[in-house]
């Protein structure tokens, strides 16, 4: 019996889902690394990267909403992820921003490895072409 916690494989290449997820993972990884204080990057630089990430998120969400693609997950991750990191970074909590980014990256990696996504299940999206 499928439920929100126990469900079939629902992540695949259909509707650009897998490609969008890989892009979102790389984007989040870059922003998270940029937010690490060791590199000495300024808040403005992190802000530019975060805004670029959020902009790509809106595009993915638009693609999912209007052009009936299956890129909802990438869109929904890339909106709160970079903007949340930006908010934490703007108040000077850079490590909290990094932790925030790591949580999102971890979530995406787990989804990619198991090919199961709770958000897809919640939205009724299945991008997997497999029969099982």
């Amino acid at each position, binding site marked *: 019996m499928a439920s929100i916690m126990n469900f079939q494989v629902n992540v695949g290449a259909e509707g650009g889902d897998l490609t969008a997820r890989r892009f979102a993972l790389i984007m989040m990884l870059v922003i998270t690394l940029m937010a690490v204080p060791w590199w000495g990057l300024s808040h403005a630089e992190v802000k530019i990267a975060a*805004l*670029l990430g959020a902009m790509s998120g*809106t*595009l993915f*969400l638009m693609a999912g*909403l209007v052009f009936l693609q299956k890129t909802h997950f990438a869109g929904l991750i890339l909106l709160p992820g970079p903007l949340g990191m930006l908010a934490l970074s703007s108040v000077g909590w850079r490590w909290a921003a990094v932790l925030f980014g790591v949580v999102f990256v971890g979530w995406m990696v787990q989804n990619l490895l198991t090919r199961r996504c709770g958000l897809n299940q919640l939205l009724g999206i299945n991008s997997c072409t497999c029969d099982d």
Partner: protein
Amino acid sequence: MSETTTTRTMDARRRPVRLVGYYALLMLFIWLMRNLLSEVGRQYNLEEFSKIKEIVKLAVNYSATFDDVVHTIFSLFLSFVFTLPLGWVYTMTKDDDDYDVSLVQTLVVLSMAVTGVMIVIGNELARAFSLAGVVAAVRFRNTLDDAKDTVYIFVAIAIGMACGARAYAVATWLSMIMTATMYVLWRSHFGERLMRAGGRRKKGKGDALAWVRDEGATQASQHALAQQVRLLQWASLPSKDKKVNSALVVDATDLGAAQRYVDAELSSFGGKWRLTGVTSNGEQGVLEYVGRLPKDATAAALVARLRDGLPPSIEGIEFRSLKGLKPLSPPATPDPGDGTA
């Protein structure tokens, strides 16, 4: 399965919430882009990049943009509001047969589109010339059935132009006076009364439909059609001799006397003729002959011969040529596709 999927896809595409979501995301995207350009402008030296600097300047100039937004929204709203009565008058004054839903919607949208165009052009002569070039490149012409529809279109354009040029008072009076004029003209049957006074009346689609719905006219047309089909069947019958190519239809008040007269005349005129049908209504009725004219004889000669000394028992004679008439081919049977056909 595929049909169900297609239907679902169509339904999903038609959900207005998607459109609302799209615009919300677009607004968010523009807001993010403004922030990005603002940050890029602050962070990096753009002195050497005048165009990028200009973009940044335009993007972060919130007050001027807000002014444009308010002007555009207000003008479009007024354009919409002023064109609605025009659509109502069109709806009220049009007959069911001529009514075009698409035109009503076009009036409203066209007016708003023209407003947008006028705002874009503003006071710039170069933009006005560019618009002329673009319009010439795009085919948007459409043939309207009624000349009055063109007037509606023109009024909608005028309202749109007035709203776009911020001449709101002109748009208001234009909308009110033109709709009132059109309504009064329709209500008073202006042109129609003048024509009736002169003893003329335009025959429109309504008159044609009234004729079709007339019981007597329907029966007459059905009778004529049945007769023609009958004659056509005779003409298409296989025969050892040459096929018949002529028909003679005789309206008679006394069928017996009329048949004797026509038989005698046809045998003396020549050719091969035979009586194929008699439709009787008491003594009155119709005789139908089919056959071939003698070689070198004309239909006019035959009719003249019959009319010469026409007895009072015959009301009318009609000659019909069956040349070139071909029977309808039977419907093609589908090929079973297994090689058995």
